[in-house]
């Protein structure tokens, strides 16, 4: 590489994107385009950055495979932090394979971590875990090590393994400090804070209280019968009955669990499960059918007894019955849960992450805007959504400079 490219790359590595731009602002050769793209990305100019990196990849030409692949990885990272989840994942995979083939292990690992973060964001935990398991964190420099441990923690937190999550986050904090990247340290601190912030609500025997993630984990290990509103499931320890595709049955079991050991009147069950204001005979008949179905689903865990005014839950084994609910239950809670990460999301990305139609996500977003829970910026396809109040937003854009080696 040449003198100004080296100088610009060193400025970028030292966290000085303006200093880097200063040195290569007017240059149109491939390495300069790549460095300009990365500097623009670090300044938050994602659209400009993507265009520059794409031009750089073309300018590098087919024989400069490693340099091209590094541009692709940088573009993928920008797509990820701007929540453009529709960005072609296969392109990232082939860039990663190219880097591995040419012995650029650091950037190959970076590409791997981007893949893991994308899978985490769209909720494909098993695949994320699988890809992560293939990556060895030991030889990674501090910033990459921190990213690795954040991914480990991200998976552990969603799997309710708080001890694993805390250990990973301690490692991440150590590595982020070594790397000296403020945005990275802030992300680790935010993640650690999440371990000490109520993650759920416990509703049992007429009372409610907030639960930390560790307490949720303890609840799952206890002999209690838990109705889990996060996953639409009923479980006792390892035994799980999923009602994710049976919303009516889930509404019934939740109402029964909240009232346990008491019973619930038919009218209340009908109102909660079918949304009917008053119960007529056809509703009662339907309720009997649905209770019968719920009995069949729950047969390994509990029975449902008829009482004079309605029904009551009767667990097969002694122990409490509890409902595990989201900390705040509002409409469109799942949309809000994604937006709670403070990043700007495209409605198409939200739809992809939720497995919902884009139109219904847009309707939800419009309602959330009306109630002041969400704000949007940009227009048309570039429109992004986020939860207020956010003055700008940080990212963990690591972007290893795609320097030609030599």
């Amino acid at each position, binding site marked *: *590489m*040449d*003198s*100004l490219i*080296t*100088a610009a*790359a*060193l400025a970028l*590595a030292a966290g000085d994107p303006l200093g880097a731009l200063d*040195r290569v602002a007017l*240059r149109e*050769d*491939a*390495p300069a385009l790549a460095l300009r793209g990365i500097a623009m990305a670090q300044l938050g100019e994602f659209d400009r950055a993507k265009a520059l990196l794409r031009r750089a990849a073309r300018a590098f030409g087919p*024989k*400069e*495979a*490693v*340099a091209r692949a590094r541009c692709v990885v940088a573009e993928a990272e920008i797509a990820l932090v701007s929540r453009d989840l529709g960005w072609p994942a296969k392109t990232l995979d082939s860039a990663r394979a190219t880097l591995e083939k*040419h*012995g650029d292990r650091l950037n190959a690992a970076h590409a791997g971590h981007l893949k893991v973060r994308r899978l985490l964001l769209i909720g494909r935990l098993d695949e994320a875990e699988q890809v992560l398991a293939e990556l060895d964190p030991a030889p990674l420099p501090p910033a990459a090590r921190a990213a690795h441990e954040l991914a480990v923690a991200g998976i552990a937190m969603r799997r309710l393994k708080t001890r694993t999550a805390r250990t990973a986050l301690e490692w991440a904090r150590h590595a982020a400090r070594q790397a000296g990247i403020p945005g990275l340290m802030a992300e680790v601190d935010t993640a650690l804070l999440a371990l000490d912030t109520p993650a759920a609500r416990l509703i049992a025997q007429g009372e409610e209280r907030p639960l930390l993630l560790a307490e949720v984990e303890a609840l799952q290990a206890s002999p209690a019968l838990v109705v889990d509103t996060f996953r639409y499931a009923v479980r006792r320890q390892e035994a799980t009955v999923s009602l994710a595709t049976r919303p009516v049955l889930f509404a019934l079991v939740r109402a029964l669990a909240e009232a346990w050991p008491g019973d619930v009147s038919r009218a209340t069950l009908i109102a909660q499960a079918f949304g009917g204001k008053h119960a007529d005979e056809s509703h009662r008949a339907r309720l009997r059918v649905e209770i019968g179905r719920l009995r069949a689903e729950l047969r390994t865990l509990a029975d449902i007894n008829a009482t004079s005014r309605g029904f009551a839950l009767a667990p097969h084994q002694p122990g409490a019955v509890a409902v595990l609910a989201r900390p705040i239950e509002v409409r469109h809670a799942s949309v809000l849960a994604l937006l709670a990460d403070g990043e700007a999301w495209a409605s198409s990305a939200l739809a992809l992450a939720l497995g919902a139609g884009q139109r219904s996500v847009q309707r939800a977003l419009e309602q959330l805007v009306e109630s002041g829970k969400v704000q949007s910026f940009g227009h048309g396809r570039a429109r992004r959504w986020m939860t207020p109040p956010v003055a700008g937003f940080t990212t963990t854009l690591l972007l290893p400079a795609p*320097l*030609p*080696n*030599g």
Partner: protein
Amino acid sequence: MKHSAAEILREYPFPEAETVAGVSFDGKNVWFAAGDRLNAFDPETGKTLRSIDVAAHAGTAYDGRHFYQIAGDLIQKIDPDTGKVLSTIPSPGGGRDSGMTWAEGKLWVGQYRERKIHQIDPETGAILRTIESNRFVTGVTWVDGELWHATWESEQSDLRRVDPQTGKVLETLDMPAGMGISGLESDGGDRLFCGSGNARVIRAVRRPR
């Protein structure tokens, strides 16, 4: 044209260096440009000896009394004893410069992606003449009347001895795949010291006779 594989004699790792750009030799020790400093090491022991705090982004040359160091789009003339920058001239490539060497009162500067080597006046920076390569030029060095330059193109490096009048390639040594060369310097004998950019090592390659 003779064509063979480069024989690597030894590797000197410098994990602390941000980069290994230019490489030079003061008759006893090897110096290399590491971004924000010039480092010296003993090529027999590999031990780092001293360093000069000065911007050092590309080629390094030694005229027997001073160092010349490319930084940004300038060539700095440096007093090795005090580390002071005595004067500067514009670099011929305007910052697109890579390797540099000293020979017979003139500086020779490689211009990386333009695939050129310029001979310039060390006082004024004026370009005296230019020879063309057909590969991206990284390091440049003179030894025993031979002009050698290193290349890095299509992610492959080689070392080539060229005719200083015509630029015609006389001899080529291929580096192993993926092993890049940034700066280049000869010790006046059998060894060519090769920088490696981000790989943070210096490799000694045997100069064929």
